[in-house]
């Protein structure tokens, strides 16, 4: 790998770590600032490659809907996050899949520990971010999260993944 690519990888990793920190610590506004105007937040359900026009997803949201989600979480009556999940995730296996002028596609994996009401749940998945390089740093154009258990019964997934 050429040195300039290593530099890009390092920068992308730092971005993903920051995103993880904002999600873990429920810093909703700071997390929202990471998104591009034409955001797409996609968490498929049942299968990783299900066409969202004809298949239900866990999350398939544009910027407006992401904002709705955060508005709800910031309020006092999102009961499934009262108390909030305590979260800690490890982001790893970061790889640049594609790097064009101003656009980087990066894949990574995460192991996420969640503790809520004395129960610990482990969530595992793979993320694919499409990042735009802007004057204000990277912005997320698309984020697709492939949960390892996206075809299994799940409890409460109302925190940010």
């Amino acid at each position, binding site marked *: 790998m050429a040195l300039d690519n290593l530099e890009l990888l390092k920068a992308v990793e730092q971005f993903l770590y920051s995103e993880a920190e904002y999600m873990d610590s429920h810093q909703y506004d700071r997390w929202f600032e990471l998104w591009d105007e034409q955001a797409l937040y996609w968490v498929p359900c049942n299968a990783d490659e299900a066409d969202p026009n004809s298949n*239900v997803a866990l999350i398939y949201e544009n910027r407006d809907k992401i904002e709705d989600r955060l508005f709800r979480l910031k309020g006092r009556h999102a009961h499934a996050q009262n108390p909030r999940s305590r979260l800690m995730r490890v982001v790893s296996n970061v790889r640049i899949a594609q790097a064009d002028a101003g656009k980087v596609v990066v894949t990574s994996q995460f192991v996420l520990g969640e503790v809520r009401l004395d129960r610990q749940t482990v969530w595992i998945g793979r993320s694919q971010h499409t990042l735009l390089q802007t004057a204000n740093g990277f912005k997320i154009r698309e984020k697709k999260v492939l949960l390892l258990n996206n*075809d299994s019964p799940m409890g409460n*997934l109302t925190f940010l993944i």
Partner: protein
Amino acid sequence: MASGTSVNGTSIGNGASMNGHHGFSIERLQGLVQRGRVHSSIYTDPAIFELEMTQIFYRSWVYIGHASEVAAPGDFRLRTIGRQPVILVRGNDGVVRVLMNRCRHRGAVVCETESGREKVFRCWFHGWTYDNTGKLLSVTAPEGYGEDFSVEEHSLTPAPRVEMYRDFVFASLSPQGPALVDYLARATSMIDLLVDASPHRQIDVSAGCHKTVYNGNWKLVGMDGYHPNFVHASVIAMWQRKADSGMGATHRSDPFDGKAATYVRDLGNGHAMLDLRQHRLDHYPDYAKFLASTPGGKEYMEAMFARDDEERARTLLAIAGDPHVGVYPNMQLIHNQIRIINPISPTQTEVIMFPVLLKGVSPEINALRLRQHESFYGPASSGSPDDGEIFERVQRGMLAQVEPWIDISRGLSREFVDSDGSIVANVTDEVPQRAQMRQWLALMTGENSSSAAAA
């Protein structure tokens, strides 16, 4: 056999009373379901849960799936009846069957994949192989069996009764009982409200599902018009700032404020609904505007008015395929989904949500139906996780048993019997809870209940 398992010589729940610990007399069960209140042990007691399996889930009609899920010969889906594994499968002969997922040899499941298309089901213990109608094709090394062994008599066991209403497949593990249409009774016309919302009168259950689970009893998934402004306060706040978006369009004025033209309706046999029809009709002009702004929306409306008379077409469009009905014990048609309730244990329940696509409408309308569903339902949504959270709080709270009664008396003083015999009250009243508990008691005690007015 332990004492207390029979009353007047009648034992309740054969499977349960066999081991001598789960016996409940009719009087004891009747004592748990009283006028306007139920004893919380019915939500917590493992012995009650065992009895529910045998008396309710293994006797009553149980919803299995929709025929469109097994559209082609060989298509199959794994489902459960209570805890018993079954295969919903369309055979090469085109017939939809519900087969017990258990090899006739040594009992292993013969199908372990959740869905797919197969010509044969092979048990990988010893290789017994069945075709997709359930017929045993061959056993390995047949010379080991004597002449009295009949391959024909070892087909996969079908559920004793399987019937369909408008492609909704139900099964009963009891060889006897009412015909499906007689059991569904008034609920049939509510299923019609969903199916007939398609211009082709056909729905398509092929969009996958949300599988959710909560740590609480299966009966907590009710049909409740009293909770939305509290459990879903966060969503209502969201809708209120964007009244035109998605479901917000159908909630422009609060259907759950106790003053709207919204009702609860006890349809009999434990089936009950939140009757939102008049409210949705009152807001039809707004909804039509919203629909017209969606690609294919005008064509959809034209097709419906060309097919049906104006009142019916308007009702079907306004309802948008949402009769908001619960069919006892395990199916609900709510918003854009068919929902299956699977009891796992006294304190754990799966709710599987299948968004429904309408045949004959634009892909954009169907995609919108999926996005509307996701916004409120599913593990990562804004609505159903809060329901699950509250159910779990109920399950924890019920462990406090000094005062063990659950109050379901709301509206007892103002409910009335409608002209069709259904019991009606304000949408916030607990008519559905009482309807479900009446049916619960009738099934648990083995007494027939068919009249909704028998309160």
